């Protein structure tokens, strides 16, 4: 047995996808995810008393049940042989998305197609067969390896589960795989604790390759490794991709790693993809304000470029009551001014800073004049707007910060398109012909998707 391509899997599903009547343009699509959501039921906010909805909205389902929208209406495709990088901060739903695609979690809605075949509701033996084509590599190489099993057993396990090859065949295959991932075939009889973190992650790669899958979903595969070891493992992953014709969904929070490994990149925020496009285009010309903020906040490894870092303020809102409209709006530095007032850029910027400060109560209660001096010194707000501001400042001075924040939010944030509509647009990429998905109303002049 030589390269993986010749490995006899005896899998009836394997090539069926290409036989279905897919159109030319989707021919090379390996995985298609459409409107996929995963919502987890949580204790009702009414009882826990913690999640009071600011918008005063009622929970969408009866019986006081609330849902944590870990993944919400996500769509994308991965083409055969490419690496799609999925990047986003902790808790944005990356792992949940990965597990839902692998059907380790049941989707709440939406569909998953693999090689043109709908696998959303696949069950039993069909699902088991399907999983052979989709393997996963996890972040923590320690806990994903059974310490009592030898490396050889670990790598052979998937073959055994699927009843493939005889003992001898499995051993040959396992030894060969160990060599391919940069280990030694003699490591076959060793135990995981004898290996370093980087080597253990290679064992995981060998195991993932055992069934010769088409797609490997890697969830933070190098996050727990030192940089120098990270680079070694990433190089191996790139080599394996070429050799085995693999397709990767590569999940990471590290933008530098994603940049080096991906062909296309999807950026996720609070359960939604906010931008998706060609890697170079997204990094060189980010469009979504969140993508920009992410890229700007990386400390550059060069002390001469210190001033280039910028900071995104605010905290991640709760995925149980995500903000209406655009989920990024509570932190967005480019929030669109409401049409009702005719704010200049400077006025709107100053007002937003004031709203943010009061909303987060970052200052002690202070007289209206003091806050005006601090925030609105250089601007002359339109009269109608000024009236609301004055009332809010008085409330704040009177020790009613919540009501002050509510008033400002009602007057200036709620009427913004960013709070009213969920953004979803196709934008022409400037770096090529490929269209880019951007979930931001700043790109409303382009065609909305759907």
């Amino acid at each position, binding site marked *: 047995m030589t390269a993986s391509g010749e490995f006899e899997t005896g899998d009836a599903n394997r090539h069926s996808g290409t036989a279905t009547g897919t159109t030319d343009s989707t021919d090379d699509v390996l995985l298609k995810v459409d409107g996929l959501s995963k919502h987890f039921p949580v204790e009702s906010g009414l009882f826990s008393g*913690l999640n009071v909805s600011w918008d005063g909205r009622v929970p969408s389902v009866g019986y006081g049940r609330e849902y944590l929208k870990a993944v919400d209406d996500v769509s994308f495709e991965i083409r055969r042989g490419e690496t799609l990088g999925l990047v986003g*901060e*902790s808790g944005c739903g990356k792992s949940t998305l990965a597990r839902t695609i692998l059907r380790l979690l049941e989707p709440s809605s939406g569909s998953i197609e693999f090689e043109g075949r709908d696998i959303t509701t696949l069950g039993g033996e069909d699902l088991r067969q399907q999983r052979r084509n989709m393997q996963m590599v996890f972040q923590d190489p320690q806990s994903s390896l059974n310490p009592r099993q030898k490396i050889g057993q670990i790598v052979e396990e998937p073959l055994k589960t699927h009843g493939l090859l005889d003992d001898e065949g499995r051993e040959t295959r396992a030894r060969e795989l160990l060599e391919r991932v940069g280990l030694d075939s*003699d490591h076959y009889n060793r135990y995981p604790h004898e290996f*370093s973190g*980087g*080597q253990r992650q290679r064992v995981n790669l060998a195991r993932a390759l055992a069934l010769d899958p088409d797609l490997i979903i890697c969830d933070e595969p190098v996050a727990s490794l*030192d*940089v*120098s*070891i*990270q*680079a*070694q493992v*990433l*190089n191996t992953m790139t080599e394996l991709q070429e050799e085995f014709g693999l397709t990767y969904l590569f999940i990471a*929070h*590290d*933008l*530098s*790693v994603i*940049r*080096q490994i991906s062909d296309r990149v999807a950026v996720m925020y609070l359960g939604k993809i906010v931008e998706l496009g060609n*890697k*170079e285009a997204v*990094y060189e010309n980010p469009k979504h304000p969140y993508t920009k*903020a*992410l*890229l700007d*906040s*990386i*400390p*550059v*490894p*060069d*002390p*001469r*470029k*210190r001033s280039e*870092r*910028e*900071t*995104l*303020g605010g*905290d*991640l809102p709760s995925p149980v009551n995500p903000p209406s409209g655009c989920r990024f709006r509570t932190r967005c530095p480019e929030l669109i001014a409401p049409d009702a007032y005719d704010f200049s850029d400077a006025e709107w910027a100053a007002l937003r800073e004031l709203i943010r400060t009061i*909303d*987060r*109560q*970052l*200052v*002690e209660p202070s007289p209206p004049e003091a806050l005006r001096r601090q925030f609105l010194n250089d601007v002359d707000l339109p009269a109608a707007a000024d009236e609301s501001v004055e009332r809010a400042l008085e409330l704040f001075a009177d020790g009613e*910060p919540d009501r002050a924040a509510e008033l400002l939010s009602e007057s200036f944030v709620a009427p913004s398109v960013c709070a009213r509509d969920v953004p979803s647009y196709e934008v022409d990429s400037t770096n090529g012909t490929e269209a880019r998905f951007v979930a931001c109303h700043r790109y409303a002049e382009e065609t909305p998707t759907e």
Partner: protein
Amino acid sequence: MTQDPLLSVQNVTTQFVTEEGIVRAVDDLSFDVHRGETLGLVGESGAGKSVAIRSIMRLISSPGEIVSGTITYKGHVILDRSQGPDGEVRDGEAMLSEAEMRSKIRGREIALIFQDPMESLNPVFTIGSQLREFIEINRDLSNAEAKAEAIELLREVGIPEAESRYHEYPHQFSGGMRQRVLIAMALACKPDLIIADEPTTALDVTVEGQILDLIEQLKTEYETSFIWVTHDMGVVAEICDRVNVMYLGELIEQAPVDELFHETKHPYTEALLRSIPKPHETTGEFDPIRGIMPDGMNAPSGCRFHPRCPDAREVCMSVHPDLREIDDGQNAACLKYDVFDADYDDSPPLVVDENGERVPAETVESVGGDD
């Protein structure tokens, strides 16, 4: 800098006795921290960074032991220990007792911030009560005064709605907010030195940015000095004035931050800088450091970096380089520099064997078919 250093660490060695032998987790460590400066302590996992700072705080417990060295801080002798020929350690008379370390130094003069805030916060008490109690104990304030101070500190470190958040529990705070609470606690006694052990490593990049801004702001406000332990060269470039690079328990390069990045002296620092994936350019390939970090038990002979060093020569296998000044204010432990007078130039280069390690040219042939 003409002033006396705030903290001076001289020849500190800390070892761990294990079943398999003795590991020198920190070996002959020396450095100064000056007033108002942020000193970076950099290295990969296993380099000895955390043991180094725990040694400064005298927080090493069995099976670990500080076996020698002196540490002075603003006239206090934190450590003055030597090892006699019998292996017994002897402490100097002026060295602070454990009780004095607790009452005078830790938390009050030198504060410590850890990577995982949950280690330092008790999950069953509210954030506010923990902060208030800390202030009450360490500063002579009444309960009410301490509470007011605690709220003020929470606001200062950017906790939104500080007054109501005061009554919440650690699990109700995000990772970034917990780290802010620890910073507030560290600031409570207005210490002159804060030692932070990977304080932003577990945080997301936007949250890390917020914390770095906060530190920057506090530095100007309080003129606090920092020792910042990290493995992230981006963070180093961002906030450090000078940097110490550690490899396998030893300092191998010491330099002002600009020189460290732009006039790198030590081959390990160079390799480390090359291996980081760049966020702002696509390099296509990664350039890893070859081989793996050996464990402390089996530290290589001579220069400890020689099995992985692209510049390694045979002399590097037997001669151990100490840290020497190579350029103004820049020290490195590498035999290729003339100050070491080690005949490096005439020594034959090592070659890479099948494990990716550097060995003498002859051994590769003779080892040949062997495992």
